[in-house]
Every structure is written in C-alpha cells, then in structure tokens.
C-alpha cells in the first residue's frame, strides 16, 4: 500500500519537475514536444473573469487599444438568437499576433482570444453567445500594439439568461 502511494507521489513530483524544466527552457523545445508546448501556452484565467472590457483587455495584454479602420468586423445588425451569433474579423494590419472577441454586456466580457503565430492569416470566424443587445468589440494585437473595432449587435432573444 505504502509503495503505491509512494510511487504515485513520486510520479507527480517528476511530472511537476518536467513541466518546470520545460518552462525554463522555453521556446526551443516547442517543436519537439508539441503536446506539452500546447499546455504551456497559458490560459488567461484572469482575463476570463473580467466584468468590463477595459479590465479584460488589460488582463490579457497589459495595455489599451485604439480604434482602427484596418480592423474589419463582420457581425449581423440583428441577431435573432443570442445563443449563436456568427462574428468574423479580418485585418490588413501586419504582424498580427493575437485577436480577441469581447461582448460588453455579457456577464463575462471576454469571449474568445486567439493566438496567431507567424504564418497564420489574421482572419478568424467563430460563433459567440450574447446575453442581450450589446457592443461587440474585436481587439487585434499587431506589432506589439492594440487596435480595435466595435459594432452594436441587436439581440432579440438573449443567449445567456435562464
């Protein structure tokens, strides 16, 4: 019995040590250990708790965004069903590293955040929930700066309420 307990603990400790070593070594290992590398891309827990867009953007990027007409959002004028609202974004900005979607009136403002590695195009489409009529904000990180676009989407039936 004690043997089993011991080896399980030992394995946990070893796994922990492996993870720490991987974080320490950083990027050069990414190509060799894709699964662990993916787990290393930390999930932005705090940003997904923020109750307003300024806090969410700050938690995610640590800076503020300026509006840009180079960020083009495609969203419906009216969404009949707030549970499924198709939103897509494209931009002509260069060196895009991240694209995020926020809904001002949702209980959790940040909906999705996408990491765009070099070689991946800065165009993303997804489907999001909207609690009620609200501004939808797209933030694009390009060349270390943040750019945003915003559009009001009217929601007939909310997708978050009970």
């Amino acid at each position: 019995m004690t043997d089993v307990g011991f080896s399980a603990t030992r394995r946990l400790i070893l796994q922990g040590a492996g993870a720490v070593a991987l974080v320490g070594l950083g990027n050069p290992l990414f190509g060799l250990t894709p699964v662990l590398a993916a787990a290393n891309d930390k999930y932005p827990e705090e940003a997904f708790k923020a109750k307003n867009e300024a806090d969410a953007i700050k938690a995610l990027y640590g800076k503020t965004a300026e509006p840009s007409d180079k960020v083009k959002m495609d969203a419906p004028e009216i969404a009949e069903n707030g549970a499924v609202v198709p939103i897509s974004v494209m931009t002509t900005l260069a060196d895009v590293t991240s694209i995020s979607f926020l809904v001002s009136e949702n209980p959790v403002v940040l909906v999705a955040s996408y990491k765009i590695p070099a070689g991946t195009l800065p165009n993303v489409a997804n489907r999001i929930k909207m609690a009620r009529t609200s501004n939808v904000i797209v933030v694009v990180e390009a060349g270390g700066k943040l750019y945003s676009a915003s559009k009001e989407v009217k929601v007939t039936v909310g997708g978050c309420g009970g």
Partner: protein
Amino acid sequence: MASTIRVRATSSGETTEVQALIQHPMDSGFVKDAKGEIIPAHFIQQLTFEYDGKNVFTADWGGGVSKDPYVKFAFKGGKKGDELKISWVDNKGATDTTTAKIQ
C-alpha cells in the same frame, strides 16, 4: 467513442483553410435549468492546431462561445495529404485529440 472534433482543412496551394466544429455543451455557468438551478460551468478553455510539429493556431475560450463551437482560420503552407493535429481541453480537465488530413 467517436471524436468530438470534426475538421475540414483545404489547401489552395498557398494557404490552408481550416474549419473546425466541436461537440461540447459550452455551459457558461450563468444559465439556469428548468428547476431554476444553475447549470455548472463546463466549457472548452483551450483548442490548439498543430501542423508539422508547429502550433498554427490557439484558441482560448470562455463560456461565451456558442454550444458546439465553430471556428475558421487559415495558415500559409500546408500540403495536401499532410496531417493537422487538433486538441482541446475543458475547464473540468477533459480533453480530446484528433488528426485530419489536409485536402
């Protein structure tokens, strides 16, 4: 069990367009059931796409992404017949992984 992940990856020569549809409840933790009890949060937190050993796209998701989530993106390169690896992990620690051939 059948995979929860359906992927279509199409190469146009220069770029590969990827569309993914995943079966997942994506419960936000804010919705009540018929008895008025809160349905606990249960949603995918991270979805990753790898091609040729490299990450080509990572999605960090909250409970605000629609049920049975859909996402579309594209990356430069990608050869027909090559494999794309897709994995997700949710807030309860469940995961699923699949591979899809680029068409």
